[in-house]
């Protein structure tokens, strides 16, 4: 007996077509990653924090020019030097009063040094009477500039080196990987110090010294990605159709490893910020009166016992920025590759 369609009633849906329809909208790779990233609160907070800091660093050029932060009045150093942070509110530790080591009572430094009434420094002043707040803003700019430019150089060298090595394969790849192996067995500190010594102290030479060590891991990751991507069908198709190698790299390989590259960038920036501070600490950093977060920390370090805020404020800034980059990097890695983090 032949089955008759009229004998059957479709239950639970309007039509069989509706049943087949997948209601979830098709998301592109980036939309999907963004949707997943939004679920990670820490990563989103870090992202907004970093956007704010970057925007602030750019905009602050208008209201805190470098000259204003470097300038000091040599006649009034005695009045303005080493003033503790003063918010103008009666918050202990942030009201312009400080308890010197060995003392039992707190002293109002603003009154005892004869600072005119109504004048206060929200983050205090340094040993020659310059506002710490202004110095930290300028230092932040320099540190970010160094880190971001160094990372961009790493990005260009690392991606070009990695794609070339992986794409060529054979003995070219072998030689290029040996070079990376040799370079990475030399401690970064030494490469940075050597280049710092060789190039002298200027912002550009600091950037170059840092960039020379950072591209290695980028190149290694990009090469591994290239090795696996070049066997994919779409790359083979492009090859068969006669596309040039450089076009395949730019159009097919790099866009498909963008996730890995972005995560790698997020890890490179904080290490560049740290190496800038290390260079400052070993006397190869920016020269005074220019300030970076690292030079602010190492310059004030000798007075840690008496004026801890001069060290701790730039340190806190440096740590917060590194932390934000690492949290965002973690979040992006999970967002780009959900399978890797599915527990």
């Amino acid at each position: 007996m032949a089955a008759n369609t009229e004998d059957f009633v479709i239950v639970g849906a309007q039509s069989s077509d509706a049943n087949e329809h997948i209601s979830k909208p098709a998301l592109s790779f980036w939309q999907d990653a963004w949707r997943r990233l939004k679920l990670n609160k820490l990563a989103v907070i870090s992202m907004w924090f970093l956007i704010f800091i970057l925007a602030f660093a750019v905009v602050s050029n208008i209201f805190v020019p470098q000259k204003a932060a470097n300038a000091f009045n040599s006649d009034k150093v005695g009045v303005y030097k080493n003033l503790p942070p003063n918010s103008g509110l009666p918050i202990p530790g942030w009201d312009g009063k400080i308890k010197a080591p060995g003392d039992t009572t707190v002293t109002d430094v603003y009154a005892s040094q004869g600072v005119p009434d109504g004048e206060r420094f929200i983050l205090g002043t340094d040993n020659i009477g310059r506002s710490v707040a202004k110095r930290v803003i300028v230092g932040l700019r320099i540190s970010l500039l160094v880190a971001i430019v160094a990372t961009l150089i790493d990005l260009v060298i690392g991606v070009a080196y990695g794609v070339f090595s992986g794409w060529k394969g054979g003995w070219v790849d072998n030689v290029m990987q040996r070079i990376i192996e040799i370079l990475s067995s030399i401690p970064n500190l030494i490469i940075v110090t050597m280049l710092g010594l060789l190039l002298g102290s200027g912002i550009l030479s600091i950037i170059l010294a840092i960039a020379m060590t950072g591209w290695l891991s980028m190149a290694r990751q990009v090469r591994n990605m290239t090795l696996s991507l070049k066997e994919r069908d779409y790359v083979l198709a492009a090859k068969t159709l006669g596309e040039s190698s450089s076009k395949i790299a730019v159009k097919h390989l790099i866009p498909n490893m963008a996730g890995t590259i972005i995560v790698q960038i997020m890890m490179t920036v904080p290490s560049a910020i740290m190496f800038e501070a290390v260079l400052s600490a070993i006397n190869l950093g920016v020269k005074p009166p220019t300030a970076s977060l690292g030079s602010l920390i190492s310059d004030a370090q000798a007075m840690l016992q008496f004026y801890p805020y001069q060290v701790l404020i730039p340190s806190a800034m440096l740590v917060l920025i590194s932390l934000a980059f690492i949290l965002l990097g973690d979040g992006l890695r999970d967002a780009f590759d959900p399978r890797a983090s599915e527990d």
Partner: protein
Amino acid sequence: MWKYILKRLGWLVFTLFLVITATFFLMQIMPGTPFNNPKLTPDALAQLKATYGLDLPLWQQYLNYLIGAAHGDFGISFQYQNQPVSMLIGQRLPVSAALGAQALVVGVVAGLIMGAVSARNKNNKIDGVLGILSTLGISVPSFILGIVLVYLFGFQWPIFPVSGWGDSFSETILPTIALAVSPAAITTRFVRSEMIESLSSDYVQLAKAKGLSDKEIVNKHAYRNSMIPVLTLIGPMAAGLLTGSTLIEQIFSIPGIGQQFVLSIPSKDFPVIMGTTIVYAAMLMFMILITDILTAIVDPRVRLQ
């Protein structure tokens, strides 16, 4: 296995040769000279140069340096007259090595414990707290941590001494913590993800099916296999410790080679800079070699690759 070790040793010697060559020629083109004292007469200058062998042709200087370096002789310091660089380094190396080893052991052991605790408490509060702590540990550079520790436990609450080395154990506590936090954080994150992976692996499923207790599964199967990959981390962590320890030795006035290295930079004491560079590179390469060999011994799967 022996072939593998020999091959790696050959590479190590070759790489070291390249490092020595590179440092030697880099030092030749470095700007500045330690002999720029205007009081020096040409005669005195010539005599100084003869003392340090700087009057010889470049290729001979290079050859001499290479032969010397192979014997562990790195020339004479510019800054401390008549002091051989190898002696300066020799005095200070044990201090740095002790500090580094102490920090590495403390960091890795703490990381192994925290990583395992984290994995066993996956996605609950303990895991969350440890996750935040380990992310913080990775973000805070060791020298900033050192400064904060000096401030807190040296000045605010003076519990520990903040400078010196070799007089008492308590002196080593703060610098060790400052250096150990980063390896601890890296190990924690790594062990956690390794252990979560092995807890869902087939051999753990089998152990469960055989009716082993939870404790036995974790201790005998999951944890052991999660520990092996940690070995591969020791190389990169040692590199991080090298960087960290130079500044930590400065902060805590520890007479190690890191401090020597930093002091020799402003005085352009090139023989010391070169000697420390080579010793640093050799130490790092040796650490990486040892961990690779250990990994190959512990995990037979690696040897096949």
